[in-house]
């Protein structure tokens, strides 16, 4: 086992699947000779050739729409959206088409595409290179939405996503790409879709997070530990379908829940988690279901002083945990 970054893990996972199954191809802007804006497909063009590593014209509807066509004709395409912020012009193809193919054909046609999108803030990307886009997809039945936080999960989940017969939105937090390192087995292994992971056990408060926020939550949990509060950290990993059981059983144990996400608060992913807890764990709750998220502004402002003021961080999470602990 070697220590790898999230980026390396995604790259390795894709490369292995491409070796394994020649139905897998990658299409996106600059994925060829340049190896992708973040270098996720570095070296792929030389290794797999132009037929499988397709530099696309600048047109996201086309990228996803064409990937859909490939998928319904027997291929397993991976469509790369250069930044998650640019996925919205492909929104119609994803929501009206990919998500509904199976249902509308009563099971005759599946649509096994993977749409990869680097998302998230903390990189001074400004309004259009920072966005969280998960709820727009996690609301849509028929889609699978994945958001790993560690290199291990990233590799295991990209492999499961490629093999899945359903359309997967695979969200790679760009701040974690090079920042987060961890042990990743060489060679084949998968992490199942739809399963959350308890990244840290604790008995007093449950924190639910995904992506970069998992790491911030773990940092905050360490701090609270020193203050005598046991914090359990759940990494959802897959946002749709949600692993409700893991969340419910943790909160039934701790009685208190904090949900952390970097998207803006209103109708962010944490809203659904709160709703589930308020209805299905009501009798177990010993305090309000709290959320730490970004404020309701259209997107992250560019200048770091403003950006960092908006983003959740370990301090804000620790503060919320203290409030809950004292409740």
């Amino acid at each position, binding site marked *: 086992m070697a220590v790898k970054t999230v980026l390396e893990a995604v790259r390795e996972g894709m490369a292995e699947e491409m070796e394994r199954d020649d139905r897998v*191809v990658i299409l996106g802007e600059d994925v060829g000779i340049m190896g992708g804006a973040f270098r996720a497909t570095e070296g792929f063009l030389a290794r797999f050739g132009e*037929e499988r590593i397709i530099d*696309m*014209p600048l*047109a996201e*509807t*086309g990228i*996803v*729409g*064409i*990937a*859909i*066509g*490939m*998928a*319904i*004709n*027997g*291929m397993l*395409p991976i469509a790369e959206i250069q930044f998650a912020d640019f996925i919205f*012009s492909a929104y*119609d*193809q994803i929501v*009206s*088409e990919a998500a*509904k*193919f*199976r*249902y*509308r*054909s*009563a*099971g*005759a*046609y*599946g649509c096994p595409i993977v749409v990869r999108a680097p998302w998230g803030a903390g990189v001074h990307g400004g309004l259009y290179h920072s966005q969280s886009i998960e709820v727009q997809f996690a609301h849509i*039945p*028929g889609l*699978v939405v994945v958001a790993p936080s560690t290199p291990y999960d990233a590799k295991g989940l990209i492999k499961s996503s490629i093999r*899945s*017969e*359903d359309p997967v939105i695979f969200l790679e937090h760009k701040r974690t790409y090079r920042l987060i390192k961890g042990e990743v087995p060489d060679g084949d292994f998968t992490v199942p879709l739809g399963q959350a992971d308890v990244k840290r056990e604790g008995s007093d408060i449950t924190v639910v997070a995904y992506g970069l926020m998992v790491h911030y939550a773990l940092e905050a949990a360490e701090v609270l530990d020193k203050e005598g509060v046991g914090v359990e950290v759940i990494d959802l990993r897959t946002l749709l*379908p949600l692993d409700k059981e893991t969340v419910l059983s943790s909160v039934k144990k701790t009685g208190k829940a904090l949900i952390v996400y970097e998207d803006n608060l209103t109708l962010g992913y944490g809203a659904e988690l709160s709703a589930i807890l308020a209805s299905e764990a009501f009798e177990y709750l010993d305090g309000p279901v709290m959320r730490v998220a970004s404020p309701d502004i259209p997107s992250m402002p560019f200048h770091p002083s403003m950006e960092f003021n908006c983003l959740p961080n370990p301090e804000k999470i620790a503060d919320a945990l203290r409030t809950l602990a004292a409740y």
Partner: protein
Amino acid sequence: MATTRYKADLQIPLEELGLTRDEVLGMYRDMLMARAVSERLWILGRLGKVYFLVSCEGHEAAQIGSVYAMRRGHDIFIPYYRDLGVALAAGSPPLDIFLHALGKRADPYSAGRQLPGHYSRRDLNIVSGSSVVGTQIPHGVGTAYASRYRGEDAVTIVYFGEGATSKGDFHEALNFAGIHRLPVIFFCENNGWAISVPQTKQMVVQDVASKADGYGFPGLSVDGTDVLEVYRVTREAAARARQGQGPTLIEAKVFRFSSHSSNDDQTRYRTPEDLEGERAHDPVIRFQEQLLNSSVLDEVEDLQIREEVDRTLDEAMTQAEASPDPHPEDASGQVYSEG
């Protein structure tokens, strides 16, 4: 039938077209069938049994001529809501269409889930579509890529109206198909109307075919009421595609005889003269006259074929109407591959 309007067609050059007499009669039967299914759907609509319908009347020659030019069962068909004739000619029998229009449980396209007009049969390479105009066009580019990628010589034909050419999906799809010279035929059924919006408010150019110029492959306009001409042009495009010469945009100029759909009333926005005038371009009558005048068919056979169509449809309708409705709980399932 007294006057022969299409003298020029007196002879049908079967050999030149590469068609047998049986195939030509098959086309004719499918055109009659498409028309008759449409007419029966209107009746079922008026009886309140069919909630919604989009008819293919006026488009039959374009739809059926183009399908016959393809290798059915091998090539890939991506129809849009108006393509009843495409579905039929590609092998989906009228029973399918009635089951679908009635939203029955046995509807082979969608098990009663989709609004009528959404043809889909995986075993016949008819691809499921949405109601969103234009989204299928990039799909056709992707299916063509996949066929070629595997070294197969299947060609994809994807259908749409002239209104759909205004959408970004059209542009993005044709652009990529041109760059990669993919085996795909973009088949536009131009009836001059997008519901109430006439072509002059939809685009400046006279011919949709000319839009191909910007994508570096041929665009052809064809009289979409002439089934054999549609066949010829489409067969050439398919041959080019199969030989690796890339895509073709075909524009079949057709007429929309009925209102846009059962929810529409085109007398609100079209003049009586306009509506009256287009009846002179009935593709079914045109083909009938052509067949009779060229002695490919005689009047007795014609009657036989028509009676056979009627019988088939009587049976299909009865069977479809007797078929059970979906259960309420059929609404769930097939959201994901598992479950």
